[in-house]
Structures are given as C-alpha cells and as structure tokens.
C-alpha cells in the first residue's frame, strides 16, 4: 500500500473489493477493512480528536460502507477518496451532535507564517490534484488559508472557529467563503 509503484494496482484492487462488497461479499468487506481501516481511523482520530469517539465513528463508517458500497462509482472518484470523504463526513455529523468544542486553545492566524502545505503524499491517487490544491491554497491570503485548513482537518464550525480565533462570526464566515470561492476559481479557471 505504501510503495508508490504498486499504487495503481492497490487502487485497482480496492475498487475490485468495493465492487465485491456492493454484491454482499462479506469476505471482500473484511479485506477492505484490513486494507483501509488504518487510513480511515487516522482521519477519524484527527477530526474527532478523541479516541473513543473516533472508534465509534469508524464503526459507523464501515457499516455505512457495507450498506452503501453500491453507491461508489469508480468512474467518479477513487475508492480511497470516496472512503476518506465518507469517514470525514461521518466525523463531522458526529461532532455536530456533541457540545461545541470550547476546550481547544485559541487559534493564531499568523498573517505571514506559511502553512506546511501538503505533506509528501502517500496516496498517489491524489498526488497531482493535491499539488494543484496546494498551489491554489498558496495563493490565498494566509488568514483564509489557515481557517479553511483548520475547518477541514479539525471539523470546526464557523462558531467554534470564531471563538478560537476571537474574531467576529461574520468576519470568519466572510473569510472562509471568499477563500472557498477563490479556491474554486483557481482550481477551475
């Protein structure tokens, strides 16, 4: 899974597994779990920022995969993107049922410190697209950039971000929305 040359084969076999899962093949489902649980748990752990919650969500993610694998369309997204998006979505759904998170420390929106940007991507499926996203993100004003990243990786709401940044809710919304539209314009000129 981690070596680059084997990536396409690994991705193809994930897609084959998804097809089998859609047909109700339990053994394929177990293999899918073994191949993807680490990645998806990594997503849950970071977004939920709490182990027990992350484990709960991971269970939910895989039960959803079992029931909805047929909705996966290999022509539209890679299996790993589909699964990762689903996992992150489930995390955010879960977070919204929990109290607002105020325990997080304040967030500094340093005006000139650059974000780390994309790490050396192990998921090559996302490499070229990832480079584009990173480049477009670089073009954003640093404040917008770090807010959007913080929202993506931490699953924060506007309100939580406003508390953490100690800025008016309206400003936070406006920064993020402008950033998103700018991002879209850059990705799809």
């Amino acid at each position: 899974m981690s070596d680059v040359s084997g990536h396409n084969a690994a991705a193809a076999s994930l897609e084959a597994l998804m097809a089998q899962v859609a047909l109700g093949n339990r053994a394929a489902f177990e293999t899918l779990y073994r191949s993807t649980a680490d990645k998806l748990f990594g997503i849950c752990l970071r977004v939920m920022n709490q182990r027990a919650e992350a484990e709960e969500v991971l269970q939910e993610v895989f039960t959803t995969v079992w029931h909805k694998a047929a909705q996966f369309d290999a022509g539209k997204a890679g299996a790993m993107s589909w699964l990762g998006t689903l996992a992150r979505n489930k995390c955010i759904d879960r977070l919204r049922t929990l109290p607002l998170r105020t325990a997080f420390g304040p967030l500094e929106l340093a005006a000139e410190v650059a974000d780390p940007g994309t790490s050396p991507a192990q998921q090559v499926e996302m490499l070229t697209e990832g480079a584009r996203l990173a480049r477009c993100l670089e073009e954003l004003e640093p404040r917008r950039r770090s807010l959007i990243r913080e929202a993506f990786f931490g699953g924060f709401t506007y309100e939580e971000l406003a508390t953490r940044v100690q800025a008016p809710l309206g400003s936070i919304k406006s920064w993020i929305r402008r950033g998103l539209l700018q991002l879209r314009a850059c990705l799809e000129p």
Partner: protein
Amino acid sequence: MSTPSLPPEDRGASATEPPDDELLAAELVLGVLGTAERRAAQARLESDPQFAARAVRWERRLAPWLAEFEPAAPPPLVWAQIRQRLGWRTEPPSAPGWWHSLVLWRAAAGVAAFAALALWLTRPPAPPRPSPPVVQAAGGEAAAAKPVTTLAHDDGTPGWLASVDRSRGTVLMVPVPSAPDAQGRVPELWIIAPGQSPRSLGQVSINKSHTVAVPPDARMALGPGSVLAITLEPASGIPHARPSGPVVAKGAIQT
C-alpha cells in the same frame, strides 16, 4: 465564475441564487455549518440533484487533502464491533476462545475473498485460448472455476492466492497487499514436489496480481501433494537455486 461579494452575515436574504447554493454546498462539504444548518443542507442533497452535484464537486476539490491524514491502527475490537453492528455475530465477544475463533474466521474469510477477487480479476480479459474460438462460446466458466490455493502466513492469514493452470503451466498469483520487507528482500515463489527440493518460480509481487509461467520441466510438479511456498530473498540472482531466507507463506496445491 464570478465571486459574489456577499455580506458576511445575511446570506439568507437571497437564498435562492446559485452562488449561494454554491457556497452552501462548499460549507456543507467543508463542515463549517452548525448542527441545524448542516441538517437542512443534507436534506437538500436528497431532494435537489443540482445541489448534490455541487457538493460532489466540492468533495472532489478538497479530496486531495485526505492524503495528509496520518494512518493510525484502530484497536482490534473495532472490527468485532462492526461485525456485531451488522448482525454477523451472535455469540458475545467475551466468550472464551473468542480471539481464536476470530482469527480462524478471518483466515477463512480471507481465502473466500481472494478466491472471489481472483475470479473477478481473471474473468474480464480472458487469456487467449489456443483452442478454436467457435466452440468456446461458454468457455469463460472453465477459466473461472479453477480452485484456489491459499498461501498462508504462519498465523493462518492468507498472504497470496494462487490459481494453478496445469494445462497451460501457469500460476496466477493474487497477493493480499502487504508492506515491502524492511531489509529490502523480495518474495520468491517456490514449488516443492513430494520428496523433491524446492524449485524457484521467480519473484512475486506484494501488491499486484500476475501470472507466473512455470518452466516446462517443472510442470509435473503442479499437482496435488506439491506445495507452493514463498521466501524472502535478495532481489539479485532470482531465480535462485535454493531458498536462503525465511518462509513467509505456504500452501498445498489445490487442483
């Protein structure tokens, strides 16, 4: 598309304009909406295909970031809990011997999965058949029905699946994707006929299926009683005359 200059707070005033939908879809995907707004937006995914399409496009735009999440191994119990949620287990997980049976179950399940996968992989681009095509109208089934030999690790979990075709002298190898050896060794496949020494069939992949051609003088060994084994060997000099590294997976040939 143009960037609408929105007043920060009152998007509701012109809630039907497409740019608003575009932003709402982005906010939904990014996850910044509060509980009630998120629910309302999710409900629109169901009822409004255009809106749903916007959301999918935003998912695709942001998906590259998913690569940045560091993998982390979930505790083993999670898998058991998933099975329970799906109603696949009736006995309570605290029953004695549970781990043992889970391992056995997994081994059995893995074999079935890869048998299915092997069939799936072998079917669509059916290998060219030497026989006349006219009488081969239903020939696909014959290829699909080959028994699968599991090359299992010591703990019983499958490492590779092999589908032996004696008549063609080939072995289709389907790996359960695994990490490369830390010491840089590569897996080498061996066939061991009863009472004979191992014969190398060359290197096999750890993550993609491929067909191994068996040298004509070794094809006799492709039968019941023979064993397929995989050892970790230095990459240079393959096929080796004899194995020198540890056996990482093996299984008796099923034909």
